[in-house]
């Protein structure tokens, strides 16, 4: 008893072949889109790899690129098969390959499910990498003369300006690091000397933030220095002042950007999985419909198409027995040898 059988006449077969051909080309476009999304994601990670201490994992974009290319190839082949399916001579070329092709598509679908899962789960890894990377970035902000870190200041300034954020979790992270290099501190000044000496590690700490934390939307000119000292500025209360500098932390800002990117890619991959499954079902129907034609010479005859030749349970038990026998053929069948002798 076939699983989900459908009767086909010539018209329906032709319609199925044409519709399936269109659908395969949509799937090729979806494959191209996945490929470009993978490249875009890779570029975005590279752009800000300094914020992640060059430690970020490129697994997801690399997988997306691979999957995109595979999707293009598989779906283009499927489209070609559909295009040739109504011509019996051309189709007989492809018939023997169809079983392997459908198995490959199955495997590819499983890979897509895996990629989609990774898109959602790897966000945790991105969060942790960002947290670590940003704390290093803030610490090395002043090292514009150290090779390998001379652009950290510029990258962090531009990130803070672009993402409207300040510091790792908030602007107070800047109070805990010395972000002005010793080269630019006037060591002969008493105030400077006092401050450096009063700190255990000899760091010049102050309650100020870099200019890139300033919010252009603030009605008053930016207050960067002596942020927690209300009396240092006229009509200023640091507890109620919200517009002066960006209050969001760069960790939150960058993570929300990357997580929304990864989530949308994950959703798109899910959509691609559905598309692939529909393609596979359609191709199975088409191939079975063409195989079960009562008179192969007469294209007008009726035929039946199905998804599985037997019911779902029977197919599974068949598959299990096949796997078991595959295992057994590898053992030496010693029981047969004595029988053969007698």
């Amino acid at each position, binding site marked *: 008893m076939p699983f989900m059988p459908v009767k086909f006449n010539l018209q329906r077969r032709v319609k199925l072949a044409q519709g399936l051909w269109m659908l395969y080309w949509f799937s090729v476009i979806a494959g191209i889109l996945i490929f470009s999304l993978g490249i875009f994601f890779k570029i975005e990670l590279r752009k800000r790899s300094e914020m992640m201490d060059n430690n970020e994992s490129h697994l997801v974009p690399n997988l997306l690129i691979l999957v995109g290319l595979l999707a293009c190839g598989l779906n283009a082949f499927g489209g070609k098969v559909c295009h040739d399916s109504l011509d019996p001579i051309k189709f007989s070329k492809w018939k023997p390959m169809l079983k392997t092709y459908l198995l490959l598509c199955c495997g590819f679908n499983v890979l897509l499910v895996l990629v989609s899962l990774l898109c959602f789960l790897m966000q945790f890894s991105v969060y942790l990498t960002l947290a670590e990377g940003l704390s290093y970035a803030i610490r090395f902000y002043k090292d*514009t*003369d150290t090779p390998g870190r*001379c652009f950290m*200041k*510029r990258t962090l*300034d*531009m990130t803070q*300006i672009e993402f409207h954020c300040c510091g790792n979790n908030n602007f107070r992270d800047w109070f805990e690091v010395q*972000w*002005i*290099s010793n*080269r*630019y501190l*006037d060591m002969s000044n008493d105030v400077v000397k006092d401050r450096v000496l009063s700190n255990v590690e000899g760091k010049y700490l102050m309650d100020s933030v*870099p*200019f*890139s934390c*300033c919010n*252009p*939307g*603030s*009605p*008053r*000119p*930016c207050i*960067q220095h002596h942020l927690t000292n209300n009396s240092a*500025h*006229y*009509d200023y209360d640091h507890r109620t002042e919200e517009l002066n500098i960006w209050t969001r932390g760069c960790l939150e800002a960058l993570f929300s950007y990357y997580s929304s990117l990864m989530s949308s890619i994950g959703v798109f991959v899910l959509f691609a999985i559905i598309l692939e499954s529909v393609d596979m079902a359609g191709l199975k129907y088409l191939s079975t419909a063409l195989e079960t034609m009562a008179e192969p010479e007469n294209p007008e005859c009726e035929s039946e198409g199905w998804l599985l030749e037997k019911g779902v349970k029977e197919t599974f038990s068949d598959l299990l027995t096949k796997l078991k026998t595959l295992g057994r053929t590898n053992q030496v069948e010693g029981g047969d040898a004595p029988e053969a002798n007698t």
Partner: protein
Amino acid sequence: MAVGKVTFSKVEREKLAEVLWLLNWISVVTGTILFGLGLFLRVEIHKWQEVMSEQGILYVPHMLITTGLAACCINFFGGKICLDCADTNKFLRWKLVMMPYIICTFFFTSCVLAGALMCYGIRSQMEESLFMGLRNAMRYYKDTDTPGRCNLKRTVDLLQIQFQCCGNTGYRDWFQIQWISSRYLDMSSSAVVDRMRSNVEGKYLMDGVPFSCCSTFSPWPCIQHHLSTSSTQDEQSQQLNLWRRGCRQALLDHYTGIMQSIGLTVLLIWLFELLVLTGVRYLQTAMENVLRLGDPESESDGWILENSLAETARSNFNIIKNLGKCYQVDDDPNINVPTAAAEEELPS
């Protein structure tokens, strides 16, 4: 003596009609490109409209938008006509419309050329507008509580950050205006009051610049205040700390670049339109001559102008003169009565 005379056989006429149909459809696409370019320019100007003093510059994108739409319509119509022109019977339908259509297209093509030239010629007007606009924007930078100007501070800050520029011509422009609102100045402080009193107009001027002038390329933390008395660095290295370029120059370069590329594209579109117009003119004259000869299968001549340029100009001028004359009365039966004929009749 016709200008640009070419003889067409029947097959050539049909081929010309087909080619022109295709070219007209390509022109519809270029018309949409023109429309898109006009829209793009409009959006770009709108982005920084607050720092431009006059809105007269908007006539360039508006011109491009209308010309683009007109191109789509005219070329769509032209494609339809050219398709019908392959057959002499169908041409009869369009015979009377062809000449006005060609004149219309000629004027429209000159509009496209005008649009392209405007893109190149607008630089000086834009510079003037930017100079005045930026000066006003900087003057009203501090007025974040005045309705209508509350966003100017944000616009100027974002402009300086995005275009990596400071002030109108340079960072010293900020020294000449009060960019800190009096609301945030402690009037009880003697230093503040002294400074304001020492200025003729009572403005609080200082040698500092807003934070948006800070350069991200600078290796050391930004120094925005006490720029004239900075002792830790010398004048030369100080230049690295702030953006060196003036915003007027930055915006002018940005818009000139956009307009030059748009102008070049529009010029190419104009050349293409001219080509299509010439083709349509040849087709029109060839088909009219076929009808005049009476034999649809015969060869016919096509030209751009029937007579030489001077003669055509003269005849057109006469037509315009006579247009005026037709309103005068000159067939009055009571004047110019031949008296000699009347005298002859009487004796006999």
